[in-house]
C-alpha cells in the first residue's frame, strides 16, 4: 500500500468550485433466524464455521431455497422507501472467483430487484428535509469472512495464510441503491450521513435488523464525483467501500471531495475505482480499478424459481407497516411538548428511545429530557460511551424524577442519588434511604434550625420581623446548610415567615 500523501484542497474551497454528486449503496444484514437460502442459523459471534449447511458451504449437490421471512423483510424495506414492489422478480448469479464465496458466485438480484423507484425524505440537523431518490432495493446473500494471518495489519498482501469463516456466508442482505444524489452542495457529507442514519433508524423501526453499525449489520459504499457546475455532465466517480459508521460516512465524503478537487485542479483525471476507507487515518486509498474488465457474467439463477409476492401479501404488509422514525418523532414531540430545537437536540443525541422508555416508566417528559440531555449526557460524553451504556436504566431515572416531583428530594439531592445509582448502590429509592438523602419534611427539626439561624443573625431577623422579606434567603441558606441540603427550601421559607410574623 502506498504511503504517499496526497495533496488535498481545503473542503470549503473545493465545494465552492465543484459540485459534488453522491451515490450511496447500503447493505443491511437482515435479522432472520436462518440464512437466505438454507436453514443454517444466523447468530452473531458463533465459533467459526459452525453456522453452516451444505448449501452455505456450496457443497456439490446442495440447492438453495428462498427464505420467506427475508423476502418479507425486503418488501417491508421497499415499502418504507416508497418503492414499487415487483409482481415477479428473479435472483441472478454474480460470478467471481474468491474464497469467501464457496460457490464462486453470489446469488443476488440483477435486473429484476424486488423493490424499485422509491425515495426517502431525510431530515438534516437543522430540520431541513432532503429527498433522496431510491433506484432499487434488492436481496442477496452475504459472503464469508476472510482473516489474513501473518501479514501486516491483517491485510492479504504479505499474509502467510488466510482463514475463511463461512458463518456469514449466506446471511440475507438487502442492498439499497440510490440514484445519483444531486444538489447536495457543501452539505454532501451531512446529507450522506443523515441518509445512512435515517436508513438505520428505519431498519430498527421495521424490526428487520438489529442494524448495529459496529457489528457490520449496516455497511455503506459511498460513490462520489465532482463536476464543474450542476449543469455539467456527471464526473468520474469513486466508490469508497465498507464505510461502517455515521461519522466515517461524513469524513469519507469530505475526504473524497478534497482529494478529487486536488486531482481536477491539477488537470488530472479521477480514476474510476474502488477505494478503501481507513478509519484511523481518515483517508481513502486506492483499491482495485473498477472498469468494464470486471465482468460478473450475471445470468438468472436457474436453481430458483421467480419470487412473485402476492398483491394481497404486499398490501397486508403495507397495512401493518409500523410507524417510521420521522412520523414517530413528530408524534412524540407533540406528546412531550418539546420545542423544535429541544426535539432536534434529542434526536441528534440519539436519546429518543431512552427518553421514551423513561416517560413510559412514569417520568414527566420534561424531567426525562432534563436528566438524559443534561447530567447524564455530560457523564456519557466524559466517559465516551453511549447513553444506553451508562449504568442507569430509564426506570431508575423515572423513579429519580418521581422522587423530585413528590418533594421527597430536591434537585441537588437527586444528583447525589444519581451518583449512588451510577456507583451501583441500587435504585434511587434505595440510595436515598441508604445515604439519608431525604428532604426533611418534619417541621420540628426545621423550626429548630430556623430558630438557631434567626438567633445567630439578629440583624436579619429584625429586618424580616419588620416586614422586609429581602434577606429571607440568608436564613434559608443557613437552614439548608444546617440540614445538609435536605430541607425543602419552599417549606423553610414558609416557616421563616410564619415564625417572624405576629
Amino acid at each position: 500500500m502506498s504511503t504517499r500523501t496526497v495533496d488535498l484542497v481545503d473542503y470549503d474551497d473545493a465545494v465552492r468550485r465543484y459540485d459534488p454528486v453522491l451515490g450511496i449503496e447500503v447493505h443491511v444484514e437482515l435479522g432472520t433466524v436462518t440464512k437466505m437460502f438454507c436453514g443454517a442459523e444466523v447468530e452473531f459471534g458463533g465459533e467459526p464455521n459452525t453456522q453452516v449447511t451444505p448449501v452455505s458451504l456450496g457443497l456439490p449437490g446442495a440447492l438453495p431455497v428462498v427464505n420467506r421471512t427475508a423476502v418479507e423483510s425486503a418488501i417491508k424495506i421497499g415499502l418504507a422507501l416508497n418503492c414499487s414492489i415487483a409482481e415477479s422478480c428473479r435472483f441472478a448469479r454474480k460470478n467471481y472467483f474468491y474464497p469467501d464465496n464457496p460457490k464462486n458466485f453470489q446469488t443476488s438480484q440483477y435486473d429484476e430487484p424486488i423493490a424499485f423507484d422509491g425515495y426517502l425524505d431525510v431530515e438534516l440537523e437543522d430540520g431541513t428535509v432532503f429527498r433522496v431518490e431510491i433506484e432499487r432495493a434488492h436481496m442477496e446473500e452475504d459472503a464469508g469472512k476472510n482473516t489474513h494471518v501473518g501479514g501486516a495489519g491483517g491485510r492479504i498482501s504479505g499474509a502467510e495464510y488466510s482463514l475463511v469463516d463461512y458463518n456469514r456466508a449466506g446471511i440475507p442482505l438487502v442492498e439499497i441503491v440510490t440514484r445519483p444524489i444531486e444538489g447536495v452542495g457543501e452539505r454532501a457529507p451531512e446529507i450522506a450521513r443523515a441518509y445512512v442514519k435515517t436508513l438505520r433508524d428505519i431498519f430498527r423501526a421495521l424490526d428487520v435488523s438489529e442494524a448495529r453499525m459496529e457489528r457490520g449489520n449496516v455497511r455503506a459504499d459511498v460513490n462520489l464525483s465532482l463536476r464543474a457546475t450542476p449543469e455539467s455532465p456527471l464526473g468520474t466517480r469513486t466508490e469508497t467501500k465498507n464505510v461502517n459508521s455515521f461519522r466515517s460516512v461524513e469524513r469519507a465524503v469530505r475526504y473524497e471531495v478534497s482529494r478529487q478537487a486536488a486531482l481536477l485542479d491539477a488537470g488530472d483525471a479521477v480514476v474510476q475505482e474502488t477505494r478503501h476507507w481507513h478509519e484511523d487515518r481518515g483517508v481513502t486509498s486506492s483499491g482495485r480499478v473498477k472498469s468494464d474488465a470486471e465482468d460478473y457474467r450475471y445470468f438468472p439463477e436457474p436453481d430458483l424459481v421467480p419470487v412473485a409476492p402476492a398483491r394481497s401479501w404486499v398490501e397486508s404488509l403495507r397495512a401493518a407497516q409500523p410507524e417510521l422514525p420521522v412520523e414517530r418523532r413528530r408524534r412524540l414531540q407533540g406528546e412531550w411538548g418539546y420545542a423544535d430545537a429541544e426535539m432536534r437536540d434529542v434526536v441528534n443525541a440519539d436519546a429518543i428511545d431512552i427518553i421514551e422508555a423513561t416517560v413510559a416508566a412514569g417520568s414527566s417528559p420534561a424531567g426525562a429530557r432534563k436528566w438524559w440531555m443534561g447530567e447524564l449526557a455530560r457523564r456519557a460524553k466524559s466517559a465516551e460511551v453511549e447513553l444506553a451504556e451508562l449504568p442507569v436504566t430509564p426506570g431508575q431515572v423515572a423513579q429519580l424524577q418521581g422522587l423530585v416531583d413528590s418533594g421527597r428530594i430536591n434537585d441537588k439531592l437527586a444528583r447525589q442519588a444519581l451518583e449512588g445509582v451510577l456507583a451501583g448502590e441500587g435504585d434511587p429509592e434505595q440510595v436515598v434511604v441508604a445515604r439519608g438523602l431525604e428532604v426533611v419534611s418534619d417541621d420540628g427539626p426545621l423550626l429548630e434550625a430556623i430558630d438557631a439561624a434567626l438567633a445567630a443573625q439578629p440583624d436579619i431577623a429584625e429586618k424580616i420581623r419588620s416586614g422586609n422579606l429581602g434577606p429571607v434567603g440568608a436564613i434559608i441558606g443557613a437552614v439548608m446548610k444546617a440540614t445538609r441540603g435536605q430541607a425543602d427550601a419552599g417549606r423553610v421559607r414558609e416557616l421563616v415567615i410564619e415564625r417572624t410574623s405576629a
Partner: protein
Amino acid sequence: MTGTVGVKPTYGGVSRYGLIALASSLDQAGPVTRTVLDSALLHELMGGHDARDSTSIPEDLPPLVDAARRGATGDLTGMKIGVVTELDGEGYQDGVRARFAESLDILRGLGAEIVEVSCPHFEYALGAYYLILPSEASSNLAKFDGMRFGLRVEPEEGPVTAERVMSATRGQGFGDEVKRRIILGTYALSAGYYDAYYGSAQKVRTLVQRDFDAAFEQVDVLVSPTAPTTAFKLGEKLDDPLAMYLNDVATIPANLAGVPGLSVPNGVSDDGLPVGFQVLAPAKADDRLYRVGAALEAALEKSWGGPLLAQAPELEVRS
C-alpha cells in the same frame, strides 16, 4: 442406442437435491433400466415433490407403473401419436430409419392413430442447448476450485496464492470436454455477448416450448428415433465435438422444454448396433411415455421372442 430403456422425467419431477449440477435448468435425473416397467418402478420411487429443490413440482406424480402395465397389454386404441417431421430424414442412418418405420407400423397395429407433426424450431434447439448448457456449467463447476473440498493442486513454481491454487486445480482436474464447455459458457455469458448468445438461446428455448405446446394440442405423444445414428466408438469423435453434439439432436428439444422423454430399444441397425425409439409427452404427463413405451416393447419382444439384450453377442473376454 445403448440397448437400454432410459427416461428423462418432466423437469422438476425428480428432485435434483444431491445431484452434482452440470446445467441446472436442464439437469434431470431419471431411470436407466432393462425394461420399461423397471423404469416406471424406479421413477415412482425417485420422483415426487422435494422442498429442498425449489424447481421441484409440488404435485404427486401421475400413476406410472399402472400406465406401464396397462401399455404392456398392447392396446393403444384412441392414442394419437405425432411423428416429428424435423427429426427424421437427412442425417439419419438407413437402419435407424427402417427400425423407426417398423415401430410405427406396430403402434398403428395396436390401435394408435399416427400423424405427422411439424416442430419448426427444433432445428435451432441444438445450438441453443449448447449455449445454455455450457453457460450454466461454467457457473456450476466454479465451486471445484480446491479451496474447501476435492482435488487441490498447488502450482509447481511461484507463490501459492488462492488464485493460483484455483487455477492449477482446475487446470489439472477437468478434462478437455469440460474445459471446452466452461470456456464456451464463460464466453457466452460475457457482458458484450450475453444478448447475442445466452439471451438468444433462451428465446429459442421459448420457441421450442411453443412448438411442443402446439404439437400436444394435436397429439397425445410425439415420437422420433432417439438418435440419428448408432453408437460411435469410445473417444472416436473427441476431435470433432460438433459431430458428437449432433448426435443429441433428437433428444435435446425435450430437455430444453422440460417435457418428459423415453427411449426404448427397437431393434438393431445394419451395423448390428442397437437403435432407440423416442416417445415425448407433455410436462407432467410422464404416464403416457410408459403406456406407449411398454406397448411397443411388448410387441417387439413378442416378435423377437425375448428381450433385445438376449440377441447381443457374447463379449470378448480379454486376458
